[in-house]
């Protein structure tokens, strides 16, 4: 089936536990003549840890082309993590996603600390954008933190456990 089937079990996990954290991302619906779904990388940076890739949505089967040629267009992610990974493994890779609201789980094994969620999008014939959302575990205040850009990426939010 399509690579998107790989993500189905992951998505199902998101609402499974009320204690789990989640990441939500709005991919903007853009009124342009030639629209391609963006490549998206989602990763977490924190002091003392290697940048941790949570998900990479890309076109792994573009008419037989592996689509990895364009991963370096996600230049922020490529520099800190992507180039060390090469082809994203199935645990984190997924097909590109349509505009709209998407939710994926926040990794459950993050140790207490101060982190930044990074969401980067790059679109063929379109723009590139990076959104950062700082968060702290365990949470010190409300359950959520958010940020937005308004171009390729709409609102990005972290819901803390």
């Amino acid at each position, binding site marked *: 089936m399509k690579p998107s089937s790989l993500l189905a079990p992951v998505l199902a996990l998101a609402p499974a536990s009320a204690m789990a954290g989640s990441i939500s991302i709005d991919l903007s619906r853009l009124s342009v003549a030639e629209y391609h779904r963006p490549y998206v990388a989602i990763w977490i940076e924190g002091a003392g840890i290697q940048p941790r890739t949570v998900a990479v949505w890309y076109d792994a089967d573009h008419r037989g082309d592996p689509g990895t040629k364009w*991963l*370096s267009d996600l*230049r922020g992610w490529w520099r800190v993590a992507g*180039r*060390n990974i090469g082809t994203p493994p199935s645990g984190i890779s997924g097909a590109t996603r349509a505009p709209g609201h998407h939710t994926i789980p926040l990794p459950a094994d993050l140790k207490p600390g101060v982190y930044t969620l990074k969401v980067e999008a790059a679109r063929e014939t379109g723009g590139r954008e990076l959104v950062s959302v700082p968060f702290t575990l365990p949470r010190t205040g409300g359950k959520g933190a958010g940020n937005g850009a308004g171009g390729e990426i709409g609102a990005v939010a972290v819901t803390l456990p």
Partner: protein
Amino acid sequence: MANFIMFKSLALLVGASALALPMTASAHRQWLLPVATTYSGEDPWASVDAAVSNDLFFPDHFPIQLAQIKVTAPDGTAGAIEHGITARHRSTFDVHLTQPGTWKIGTEGFNVMGSFKVDGVEKRVGRRPGPPPGAMGPGGAPGRAPVESVALDAIPANATDLKLTEAISRNEIFVTRGAPTTALFKPSGKGLEFDPLTHPDDLVANEPGKFRFLIDGQPAKGLKLTVIPGGKRYRDAEGGYDVTTDANGVATVKWTGAGMYWMTISATDNKPTTPRATERRMTYTATVEVMAP
């Protein structure tokens, strides 16, 4: 053997043309310009333009000859150029990045030139540089004929007033498939060398690049690295600037924005390796890509 001889003579030609640039008042610069320096995917190809011109990177003068280009793969083996063409103003070629890691693509020049006297008559050593045959492109005018002069090994024993300069130049770009590697930067301990502390394929506009330069393996302090951003055609000023190497031979370069930059550094000393030469002039040039943050 025939190939070796051909290589030697090419290397001399390279030396002659490369060397003239920093020595003359003309600002003609040799440059290599990769389309990109960072590549992902299973089958990446780097595409490169190579030319000589005043403005960077605006090819309006002469192409660099493809025979001068040398490719080194991340594991140190020789790579190859493909799809090469030499047009009126520039050469263009591809390098198939068949190995992950950092590749080096560039030219090297070694030349000895100068003068001496025999019975009070001055003679020259080395060629006067001119565009090599074919440099004007297919169907173009032939290059200027080199001025005949005495070969280095034909200097007679009774020569006096020997003034011989050994000139060594390199002009390089680095392209990386996947994660950058540093094997190609291991210094040889000979001549002027580029020993980057910041990987040249890991430059970002809001972070300074730190590049060490060595001469015979020792820090080259107090040298002037000239840094020129591309795109002068669309500005009033060239926008170049100089950075001086510190006591550790390190030049700390702040970028004026994302884009391609041409950098060059020269040093002269009295430690030539060529017998009877009195001076050594060393030039290192590189084009680097600085990404937006």
